[in-house]
């Protein structure tokens, strides 16, 4: 018998850099928020797209990771590239995270 339950996702969003150099993290597990279609949000993002280096300095840097049982996605983006599907995913994770944490 196969397991018919949806693959649970853990999604981590880390914002670092900026002028202040402060790091903030938001984390969510899909099992805690099944009302949101996390698979659709994750798969809508262009994970393989490369961000060419530019001359912007002091902008935020975003590390976004999405992990399921056998699948793992990871991307590092400058703040200027967090638009469209990325922005939607990041905003959802931030919204449902119970509490942003600051570490390091």
């Amino acid at each position, binding site marked *: 018998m196969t397991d018919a339950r949806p693959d649970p996702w853990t999604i981590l969003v880390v914002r670092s850099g*900026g*002028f*202040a150099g402060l790091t903030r993290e938001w984390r969510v597990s899909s099992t805690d928020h099944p009302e949101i279609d996390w698979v659709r949000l994750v798969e809508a993002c262009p994970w393989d797209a490369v961000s060419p280096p530019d*001359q*912007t*300095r*002091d902008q935020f840097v975003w590390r976004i990771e999405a992990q399921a049982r056998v699948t793992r996605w990871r991307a590092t983006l400058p703040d200027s590239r967090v638009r469209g599907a990325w922005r939607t995913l990041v905003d959802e994770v931030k919204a449902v995270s119970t509490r942003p944490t*600051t570490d390091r």
Partner: protein
Amino acid sequence: MTHGIVPPYLLARIAELDDARFAVAAEAARRALRYDEPFRAARLSFSLDESDNLVVEVGDGPNRTIADAGHRETLPGTVVRSEGDEPTGDVAVDEAYDGLGATFALFSEVYQRNSIDDAGFPLDATVHYGAQYDNAFWNGSRMVFGDGDGEIFGRFTASLSVIGHEIAHGVTQFTAGLEYRGQSGALNESISDVFGALVEQYSLEQSVDQASWLIGEGLFTDEVEGTALRSLKAPGTAYDDDVLGKDPQPDNFADYVETPDDNGGVHINSGIPNRAFYLVAEALGGNAWEHAGQVWYDTLSLPLDPRATFVEFAAATLTAAGTRYGETSAEAAAVRAGWIGVGVEMSSDDGRAA
């Protein structure tokens, strides 16, 4: 000698003066208007020679334009103040305008550099960027300032060191071109902190002993346990807060932080070269923008690898000090001691790092 920035409309009025008492000033203004781009300000310096004749010198002037993003994340926004315009009454707009002028003054008057590219690069800034935006950045051609969230950060134009920091990113872009990752990225950040601090010190006429050596003083709200974002004098001590944690900057190369975030910790490891600069300035005393600042400024124009390491940059500063002040000068000795003081090894003979 007194000097100041003369806006274009006033230059035009001075140029048209038909009064023998002001003939020197009128001719200087006419020269400035001929040499400069339309509507650019000029810096006029007034002094008396030994015969009590008025001497007027024409220097470069800034070309500032401040735009308002209206709390959207769209650049450039609506222009609200141009060079020579009166203050608007909007604190962020006027702080940005004045801060750009103060930064231009340091580079022009002390290092004889005409703006970011040494060719009159326009100083464009956008304020009120984004909603509760906790940041300020340089986008390759303009400075951008958020208003802060009001809970942790206030507006980013509140600190002159922040404005100087962002312009210095432009100067580095047009000189050393240090890559924004790892050690070269931390050096890039440190250079901006150094000149950000020097802009503030030059503006306030503070000596090494009088200066705060803080970056971003006054940005935190009263809710935060901290005085600033960074300290060049004592990296790692700028804040210690229940929510933000403790200032993570190391002050010695032995404690260099390896991290995948923040382009390899460029805002963290900058504490090491920041402290090195402070030690050099402290050893030389007086005004930091003079000899210590001159050495760092000269270093930017040396043939430097864009991926320079701390050791390579340290060697370049020693070369710069030796070239300008002599290899056995107090400046060269202070530079060597400064880097050794933060754990960066220096060779003992030819200025090349071990």
